């Protein structure tokens, strides 16, 4: 690990200022992702600003929904009564991630910011445009079983690997960020992460030094009918091959509102408005769900080793919608 300067932030704006003043500074929250990457020499900050002790861990009801502190732990968030009652999809998604020990350390802000699990990204001996812009993409014609089938570019085929964010996309969350001027900016979650294009080194649209302070979720009527499905190589402690955050709101026998978000298929959580459109106004039938799944994956462009994700994605959507309808809890 490279030596770095370490300081403990006292308040959010100060933290934002310190990091923004140094192009190679980083925030440290739970450390479960950053520290690993520092050991691997993938991240080499010259300065680390520890924000973990900031007073940003509250979870509270607001006039139009809920506000979840960026530094609330994943486990505290998933198990909070307000979250469990009103946003079970978020609870399910968080609990599908990592392991109990990690969720006890991991914060919500860090979780949004977690980096890809592409093997080439982790190995500094290998080409990777995300880690070393211009060095090439090792995965494009290499081992890409866990990589993207949607929205990727020649420059990067990595996926965003997280679970929590898939639920946030389905729940129309907003990310509240603090700037150096002490003012907050609101970023709709679907504009938070980016597609790789020709700047895969940028995972998201946060400016350097901007600090996530909270995640806000508006009220909705999805609580009764939502489901998070995660398909993985082992039953726990593994990232998704494909995951689906599905949510439905009914009017009578017809679907009034729908959310279909695929995880681990693209550089960001992949909300499919096309898939949702197929569902709206329709009665609940397997055929409707299948048509929705077809629409979601219609533009998929699999790589050499991840063709299975297209079929798996479709089946997972159908299954997640079915389970959402039956009101199961993952």
């Amino acid at each position, binding site marked *: *690990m*490279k*030596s770095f300067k370490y300081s403990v932030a006292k308040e959010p704006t100060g933290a934002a200022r310190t990091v923004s003043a140094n192009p190679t500074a980083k925030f440290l929250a739970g450390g479960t992702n950053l520290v690993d990457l520092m050991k691997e*020499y993938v991240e080499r900050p010259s300065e680390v600003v520890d924000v973990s002790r900031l007073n940003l861990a509250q979870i509270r009801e607001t006039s139009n929904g809920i506000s979840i502190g960026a530094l609330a732990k994943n486990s505290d968030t998933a198990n909070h009564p307000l979250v469990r009652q009103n946003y079970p999809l978020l609870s399910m998604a968080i609990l599908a991630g990592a*392991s109990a020990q990690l969720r006890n350390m991991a914060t919500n802000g860090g979780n949004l910011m977690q980096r890809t*699990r592409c*093997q*080439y990204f*982790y*190995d500094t*001996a*290998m080409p990777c445009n995300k880690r070393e812009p211009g060095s090439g993409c*090792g995965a494009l*014609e*290499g*081992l890409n*079983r866990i990589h993207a089938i949607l929205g990727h570019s020649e420059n990067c085929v990595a996926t965003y690997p997280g679970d929590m964010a898939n639920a946030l996309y389905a729940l129309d969350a907003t990310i509240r960020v603090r700037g150096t001027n002490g003012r907050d900016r609101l970023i709709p979650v679907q504009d938070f992460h980016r597609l790789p294009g020709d700047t895969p080194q940028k995972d998201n649209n946060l400016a350097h030094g901007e600090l996530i302070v909270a995640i806000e979720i508006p009220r909705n009527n999805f609580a009764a009918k939502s489901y998070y499905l995660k*398909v*993985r*190589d*082992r*039953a*726990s*402690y*593994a990232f998704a*091959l494909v995951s689906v955050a599905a949510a439905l709101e009914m009017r009578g026998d017809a679907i009034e509102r729908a959310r279909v978000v695929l995880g681990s298929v693209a550089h960001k959580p992949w909300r499919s408005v096309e898939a949702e459109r197929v569902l709206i106004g329709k009665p609940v039938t397997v055929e409707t769900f299948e048509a929705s799944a077809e629409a979601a994956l219609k533009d998929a462009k699999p790589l050499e080793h991840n063709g*299975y994700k297209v*079929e*798996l994605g479709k*089946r*997972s959507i*159908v*299954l997640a919608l079915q389970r959402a309808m039956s009101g199961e809890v993952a």
Partner: protein
Amino acid sequence: MARYIGKEMSRVDGFAKVTGRAKYAAEFKVPNLAYGFIVTSTIGKGTIRSIDTTEASRAPGVIGVLTHENYPKPAPPAAPELKPEENRNVRDKSFRALVSNQIFFNMQPIALVLAESFEQARYAARLVRATYNEEKPMTDLESSLDKARLANPSRPPRPRGNPTEAFAAAPVKVEAEYTIPIEHHNPMEPHGAIAFWEGDKLTVFDKSQGVYVVRQHLATSFHIPPENVQVISPFVGGAFGSALRPNYYPALTAMAARVIQRPVKVVYTRQQMFTGHGYRPHTWQKVSLAAERSGKLTALIHDSKNNSSSFEDYVENTTGMPRTLYACPNALTSAQFVHTDMSTPAPMRAPGAVSGMFALECAMDELAYALQIDPLELRLINFTDVDPDSGKPYSSKALRECYRLGAEKFGWSKRNPEPRSMRDGRLLVGWGMATGIWGAFQQPASARVALKSDGTAHVSSATADIGPGTYTVMTLIAAEYLGLNAEKVKFELGDTRFPRAPVQGGSFTTASVGSAIYEAAQNIRQKLMDLANKEASSPFKTAKIEDTELLDGKLVLKGSSQSVDIFALMRRNNLPELVDVHEARPSREREKYATGAHGAQFVEVKVDPATGVVQVTRAIEVTACGKIMNPKTSHSQEIGGVVWGIGMALQEATEVDHRYGRIMNPNLQHYHVPVSADIHEIETMFVEEDDKVVNPLGVKGMGELGMVGIPAAIANAVFHATGKRIRDLPITPDKLL
């Protein structure tokens, strides 16, 4: 009546382990220690053109950087020359670090940075810069099967009967190819060593399955007499074969210690373990089976090809054990290897057997379907009580009882053979079974038993305890046959100051070292009787040694109330201790028999038809491996075997990017082994065998046996559940869509 044998005993080292008092190799405190960090190559084949250590050498705390450019050439052989018995290993072709600029595999060590702290060494390692003359590596076994060779071309495979003709003539046959990827042991404890010199005497704390092997390797590496080398390895945090063959780091650590004249510690990172020790090789197999309509096998043709490194001819004995399992008159089996630009493989739990049995037992399942005979029935039809090659009878083989008991416990008779016929809600249910087979090996091994007049005993042998419970079982054996309370017995291992023992591998430790302790205890009893008989009052004057036993500190004349207090006897003779150093060897009697350990495995899987996710919801494993010395640790071994089998069947694979010849998942986030959530019901049972032919204790190999049939049983269950025959491990969800 046995007091200890066959009864549950908790691990005697358990308390030390959970309280952190047990010291592993890298944990010993040695003053003035320097830390080494290995730098590895970023190419898979070629030569190092230049290596620049200037910046690294200047980094804080750095003491020096070793590369092939400044690595000392070992001195000429020192007198005295190696003793003949030490010479067995002189053809040790194992990889040695930094001896030349050649790159044989990706992530090969190219430098060792030495610093005052681990962090400083690790940081400076990033500052070493190498350039290469790069060549294209060849690491893909499956694209080079035509280059496969026999390790010993002068000994081509010997057929039994006439397999080719029998195959051609048979009414029912199956033929299929099976592949297993490279797999790594991934023990919890990373391999590491601490080395220091006192003059030309070398001491090494190492993680090892055999301290004498490491001693020999170091003696030949430095051309010093083996007596000058002491290797110490009291605790091992799992090894599974990865510390059997000499690994490169002990010699590298010792050389570094010699160069900087300070003690040096080197510990692999998880990544470095993927090329710093061996692995289960990538294996391709083809099995052809032929049978009469009755199910009687008429031909078995089994070929295996595995990858090796470019500098060693490593062949897995994949086909050896499967060849002996069934009463098939015609058989031809061969095992070959292909040179690849990878590091050399190594034995990994149940080496060869689990790979070979995956292929054979899947093929048997395929044959059962072709014949429309129940898979268990097919195995019973072809059961043999004699080794089909030699015709020798088995010394014991309770496999039939294992099949029967396992089937009954599992409810096998309720199985509907039709694939996709059984369901649990949405989930497809599959039931599969397979056979496990392993050896009942015994190797020459020595132990020292010292009975002390203070009522205690000290027992030692240079064996290892990589987890199975060797400390415990040896304590138990000594306590039983010295007639002492187990708390009075101290057993030590893992040090070349102790009598020579074989490596801990092949599941032969209890048979080998246990027999040495048993026989030494008999000798002590004889000595005590001789001593007693010098006294006029001895009750043993006319007794034979078999008429006596040691119990609670007394030598007892069996079936009488007469006895002698052995500790008083020793004190009367001014003997603070009675010592016997004994080597036990396999008996002649063994040669008249075939020997082996067997088991039957039944598993249930549930497969999600939408996602292809497989869960192993139930596993019944019945094992016949002679006498069970300690049921508690024995069950642990078998349960561990099942868990490993689940990992092998469903998860484990080392992924190589063949463009670079580089392993791309050398860490536990990308290399999957089972987690608790993957493990459901596992029930293990033993059918005990009374077998005094295999060794005086009647024990057989068990540590490896437990996993041998599991991957095949799972693959067979997956076929039953889904109708899909997956012949390429691991069976991940994508393969079942």
